[in-house]
């Protein structure tokens, strides 16, 4: 359904199309650059002027997932025909693989902490938002303001107290600690956003469900939740993006066991040379989960953002 008074002329449509495609190209250029660099060889990656056309290699990805050491001269002298493809690739550089790197472990930490904290932020945020929206909560407006006030400074401003608290509680470098922290930071966002979405749903639907023989919780579950799904999905995306990309707290509070990918990726750069393709490969893989999650919820996200505009 079109709400415009007059249909756009074909010239206007062309102009709009060019504008949108142009903008999309500009925003996607860094992404393209990162993805391309991941498939370049080390010399190509730092070539000047930059190479648009290059011979793709998975060297960067092999470096990302492995730890290597210089190949001893006697090992180099006795070529082995049964070498796996990645070992041969590494040997061309005079290196040999001694074991896996910690990238997959860090990546998995990010998945647990990112999705875990999103899950809790959404579940707790929805419950709180529903209560704020539907029940008489004493000092409701003040409470909502307090909740939002946690966002009025950069979270890192409280890094030192958090660091001390975490050390005292033994939460340093634990998955639980990071999930707790990211959940706490995201809760204000989720409570506010979801509260807005639930406020938009007329209370009459729940009343109808109560009359139709359902309990309060069943009415919430069967009537409110499906209608708030779009809002909840878009909130989940925002929460995940924050937790996934968070760098400062991750550097400060994790090291050995619970380190997430963001503080790890820069360390790939290595000691000797600067292994840009491996860094780019890590960044590319790091982008994927959020991208997939967002694409899966894309329909909801678009509707979620325009929620207020299309509802009657």
């Amino acid at each position: 359904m079109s709400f415009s008074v007059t249909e756009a002329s074909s010239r206007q449509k062309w102009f709009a199309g060019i504008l949108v495609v142009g903008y999309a190209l500009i925003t996607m250029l860094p992404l393209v650059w990162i993805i391309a660099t991941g498939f370049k060889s080390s010399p190509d990656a730092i070539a000047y002027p930059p190479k648009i056309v290059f011979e793709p290699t998975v060297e960067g990805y092999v470096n990302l997932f492995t730890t290597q050491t210089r190949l001893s001269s006697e090992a180099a002298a006795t070529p082995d025909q049964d070498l796996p493809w990645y070992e041969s690739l590494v040997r061309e550089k005079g290196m040999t693989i001694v074991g896996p790197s910690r990238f997959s472990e860090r990546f998995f930490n990010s998945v647990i902490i990112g999705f875990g904290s999103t899950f809790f932020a959404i579940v707790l945020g929805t419950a709180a938002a529903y209560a704020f929206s539907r029940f008489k909560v004493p000092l409701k407006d003040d409470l909502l303001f307090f909740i939002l006030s946690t966002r009025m400074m950069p979270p890192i401003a409280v890094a030192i107290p958090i660091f001390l608290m975490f050390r005292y509680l033994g939460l340093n470098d634990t998955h639980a600690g990071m999930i707790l922290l990211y959940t706490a930071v995201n809760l204000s966002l989720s409570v506010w956003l979801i509260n807005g979405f639930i406020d938009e749903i007329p209370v009459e639907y729940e009343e109808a469900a109560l009359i139709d023989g359902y309990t309060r919780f069943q009415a919430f579950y069967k009537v409110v939740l499906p209608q708030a799904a779009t809002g909840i999905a878009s909130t989940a995306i925002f929460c995940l993006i924050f937790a996934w990309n968070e760098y400062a707290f991750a550097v400060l509070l994790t090291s050995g066991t619970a380190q997430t990918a963001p503080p790890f990726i820069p360390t790939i750069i290595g000691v000797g040379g600067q292994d840009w393709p491996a860094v780019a490969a890590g960044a590319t893989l790091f982008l994927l989960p959020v991208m997939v999650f967002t694409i899966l919820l894309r329909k909801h996200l678009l509707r979620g953002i325009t929620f207020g505009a299309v509802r009657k």
Partner: protein
Amino acid sequence: MAEVVLENVTKSFGDTVALDRVSMTIEDGSFVVLLGPTGAGKTTALRMVSGLDTPDSGDVLIGGRSMKGLMPAQRNVAMVFQQYSLYPHLTVRQNLEFPLKSPLLNTLQADIDRKINSVSEILQIKQKLDNKTTALSGGEMQRVAIGRALVRDPSIYLMDEPLSSLDAKLRADLRIELKSIQANSGATLLYVTHDQIEAMTMATHVGVLDNGRLVQFGSPREIYEDPVSIYAASRLGQPRINILPADVFEGSPAGAKLIGLRPEQIAQGEGEESFVTRVEHLGDQTRLHLSFKNHDLITVTDAHTELKSGDIVKIKPDKPFYFDASGDRFSGREK
């Protein structure tokens, strides 16, 4: 089905008294219509019975059992909301199934299909069953909302202006349909409307609410022919009852301040002269706007009348109502 009793139900919202000591017995199988302007407490009365709101004081009894502390689901009532309140994420069929699939009723699928089939037939929404409710017209939404109540067999049906957004023909059809459903099944209904035809034709009892107080309760004829006050008299009658100072006509009893004349209480052709100011031909009847001693009157005359504005008609009250200064009936009832 069951008898529903309101006992001294009082409810306030802040400073506004929505219901003020309302007592009413809705007999098993009766069709009770609540009349009153917006804000009189009609919807609040429905919500008290449904359990969506609870009385500040007083009690609601369904089938002789006090409803104190019972959730709407535990009361087994069906309600048609004024704003339809159809679940927008469900299809028409799913909306109709919703109460039947509740933990309360937990109906077998075969029974669900049978009921939905018959209800959608009655309400003429069969071809819309698989549509999303958001894709329906206002009239269709209202029919689905009625259907969602009719699939059930509750202790009482509560309906809040269920026919208000239907076109005239469908409204007439559904009025007859609702009445015959009620008559055949012995269902008990508490029904809110502004529509006088609905009240007169469907109700077994009419309750007149004025600012939260139940001022009169009785059969539609009783309310029409023997109203307790100007307020109650004004609820029914098209065109509305004419209220004039009692002394403009001769023969008013001493002490009566106001006279109330329904069109049929104005005898034409004898008595004192009045001027015709306007003639409205409505087809089946003709309305006469009269000017009588500087007071405006509206009455009904023969559909094929030759009268036109400027003509003179003689009129005389015929068994009129008299009211005192406060608007209560003057004679026949009290003092």
